[in-house]
């Protein structure tokens, strides 16, 4: 699509600069439940977001009716929107950079070329493997989701960038049942490389997790040493990632304000934001503002080294954008705690009396990303003298995320990325307050 006619009208009506962001998505979603193909969805959509500067203010609109005959109406709406803005913050439409990293392999055509029938067969095969694994598996739900995303950013300052990415996720949710007790578990692989979808791995992981939780009991309330499993740690990091956003910091909504250069975590902790990570849908050479992305250490040996910036927050802080301007705000790309050297098994064996937390529920409500306080429903295992002695459920763990990062005593080698491309290895934590029986 060519948006030059829109830019011409915009200029004639007095807009100082205008930028379009066009995203076209092709999707396929499959789900097998108890052996039946329960969900089979396909979609082709396009969404156009436009922003324009009028009298120094940014007007915005979003539309799914993408028809250049509406250009004049769009420009009027943008002017109306800009006219309401009171914020004195400087606004930006980016002229582009001399250098954009060349990121290979964002789209693997083989992923799209594999026929729908074969993908359906793959989801069925995963379901079969799971149900054959253990007779206590009562419910299995397996799924495959694939997306191809094409992005065009074009503006009146001559910037024109395009990106074409694809990615898929294959996973399963299972419920194990024994007597009157049922326990669920979830596992997945996310990649754009068909070779990565190892059905046995997913089947083993989620069956083992669900079955081993059968008979889970609460434990007495108290303070416990904890191994926080990679996926649980990732979901906790995810809930607190806004702390690292310069927007939260500048608005006084992050406890990391004024902490640059200071130790905020155990000195073994390194947290990175990596836009070039392979096989990730979040990877790319530029952000939604058209700014080049960059690999950066957020926390280096426990010290906070930078916040995530977009053009606006960078200007305020007299620094450069870190290429984290996404969806009108600030988001990470692939954001994770770097793996350490301890194996997960070693970490568990090193607990004299403690808990392994494999799952945290309700992180959207039970975490306060401003203060870092959290109180969450958890499940996992009780460990005594290095051995798992009992599955544990219906407990809550409570603490503060920044204190937790300082209380890390070992970092495992099992980095796992979650759905939102935020990841962590398993972490051993000195102590957490547990409320149980």
């Amino acid at each position, binding site marked *: 699509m060519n948006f030059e006619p829109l830019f011409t009208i915009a200029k004639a009506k007095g807009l100082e600069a205008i930028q379009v962001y066009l995203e076209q998505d092709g999707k396929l979603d499959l789900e097998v439940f108890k052996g039946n193909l329960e969900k089979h969805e396909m979609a082709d959509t396009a969404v156009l977001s436009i922003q324009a500067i009028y009298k120094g203010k940014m007007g915005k609109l979003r539309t799914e009716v993408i028809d250049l005959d509406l250009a004049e109406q769009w420009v009027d709406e943008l002017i109306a929107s800009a006219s309401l803005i*009171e914020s004195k913050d400087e606004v930006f439409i980016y002229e582009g950079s001399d250098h954009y990293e060349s990121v290979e392999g964002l789209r693997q055509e083989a992923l799209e070329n594999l026929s729908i029938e074969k993908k359906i067969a793959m989801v069925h095969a995963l379901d079969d493997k799971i149900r054959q694994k253990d007779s206590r598996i009562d419910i299995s739900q397996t799924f495959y989701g694939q997306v191809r995303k094409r992005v065009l950013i074009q503006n009146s300052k001559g910037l024109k960038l395009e990106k074409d990415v694809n990615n898929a996720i294959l996973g399963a949710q299972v419920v194990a049942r024994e007597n009157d007790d049922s326990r669920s578990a979830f596992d997945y692989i996310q990649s754009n490389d068909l070779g990565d979808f190892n059905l046995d791995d997913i089947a083993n992981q989620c069956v083992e997790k669900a079955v081993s939780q059968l008979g889970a009991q609460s434990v007495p309330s108290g303070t416990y040493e904890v191994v926080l499993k990679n996926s649980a740690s990732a979901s906790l990091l995810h809930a607190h990632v806004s702390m690292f956003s310069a927007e939260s910091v500048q608005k006084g909504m992050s406890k990391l304000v004024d902490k640059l250069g200071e130790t905020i975590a155990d000195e073994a902790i390194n947290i990175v934001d990596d836009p070039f990570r392979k096989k990730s849908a979040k990877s790319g050479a530029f952000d939604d503002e058209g700014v080049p992305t960059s690999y950066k250490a957020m926390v280096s040996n426990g010290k906070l080294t930078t916040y995530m910036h977009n053009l606006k927050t960078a200007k305020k802080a007299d620094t450069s954008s870190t290429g984290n301007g996404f969806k009108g705000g600030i988001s990470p790309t692939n954001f994770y705690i770097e793996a350490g050297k301890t194996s997960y098994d070693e970490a568990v064996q090193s607990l004299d009396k403690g808990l392994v937390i494999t799952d945290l529920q309700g992180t959207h409500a039970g975490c306060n990303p401003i203060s870092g306080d959290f*109180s969450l429903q958890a499940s996992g295992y009780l460990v005594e003298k290095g051995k798992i002695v009992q599955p544990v459920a219906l407990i809550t763990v409570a603490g503060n995320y920044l204190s937790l990062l300082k209380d890390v005593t070992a970092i495992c080698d099992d980095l796992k990325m979650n759905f939102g491309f935020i990841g962590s290895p398993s972490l051993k934590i000195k102590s957490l307050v547990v409320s149980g029986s």
Partner: protein
Amino acid sequence: MLDKSLIERIINKALDSRADFAEVFIEDKKSSSITLQSNTVENAVNNHVHGTGIRVAKGHNSVYGYTNSDKEEDLLALAEDLAKSFPGERVRETITLGELTRGESHAIKRMPNTVAMQEKVAIVKRANEAARSYSDEIKQVSASYMDYVQDVIIASSESIYVADQRVRTRLGIHSVASDGKDMQSGFNGPGGHYGFEFYETFSVEEAAKEAARIAVTMLHADECPSGTMPVIIDNGFGGVIFHEACGHSLEATSVAKNASVFSGKKGEKIATPIVTAIDDGTIENAWGSANYDDEGRKQKRRVLIKDGVLTSYMVDHLNGLRMNESSTGSGRRESYRYQPTSRMSNTYIDNGDSTFDEIIQNTEYGLYAKKMGGGSVNPSTGDFNFAVMEGYLVKNGKIEEAVKGATLVGTGKDALLKVDMVGNNLLRAQGMCGSVSGSIPTDVGQPTIRVSSMTVGGRKGASS
């Protein structure tokens, strides 16, 4: 919006297969939102959602596709692609749609597109000023205004051809209080199936002060002790406990798959006899109301639990086939991008006999959860968790000190059987409910209730 003959052609193209059901959901939704933060209007955005979803099924097996193209060839090609999942001889006769029926309830007095943007801006400014004036400790306020007009046409091979217009608006106030060391926040978000006249039905200032009051109260609260204790959950948004712990487990989405703790329990006692619970999508101008569900069936009032006995699930068309039950008009979805499934509308525990004072006075030691935060539930196990936004300890029948950081944990079926007092002060509050068919507006509600024993998680360690 697409014309009748094109809709008929899409349906018939989809039924050119062994499929026995085809449905077209056409949506055009215009929304506007304004956000204010740090005393200034920061954002004003219009959003135009426009697209069509096509669902094709054989029995309860369905395929779904959506696009935002209005082009005949794209829509027919999608219908044909979907039909390919059910190859074989056609089983349905050619479908002809009847007359289009339009929903007439939930009248709107001031359509959002007839109200000047400046008037909408004035609402967030009033909210901001009121929240800030509550206390010097309020350091940050963000206020957001949102309205939308969603026009839908729903047509299916089940003699359905209806149009509905959902007009909704909501004000959200988020306040942050700080004393320099600690920060706490409070939220309040009134909304309804209304146009701009909504803002004449309540005091914007009072709503904003409520968000500020919670933040300031929690700033001075001690950490909540942990342990097992009676929990008194207040009216209004306290109903989120029922919504999460029981409501989701009564949706056919999980019941039909036998994945709910309440599967196969109709007619059985699942709660104490003082509990009656209702899901009512017909309440005049309520946030979760509409004329039709998103499968084109009339919204209804459903009694889910009557005097402790499970009387009805919430059922959508396809899950109904699986369960051998009729739809209860509960098929809902966020937009054309989602297949509908059974969802709640305005769900509440009905009034009981106790007064608020009686409930407090009869509690020797426990937690009074005055304002609930969000929560979530695992529908297969019924395990739930809720954050308490504003809580107090109750000692010897009196409300004592405020406590922060509490989480309530339990399972839905146990909690229902432990409700031992139900108040007479029913109140509803608004929320957004996220599930498989997207994020939809729902009311939660209840009078003040007491659960005789619940696990309370807090940072203060075990209570003595």
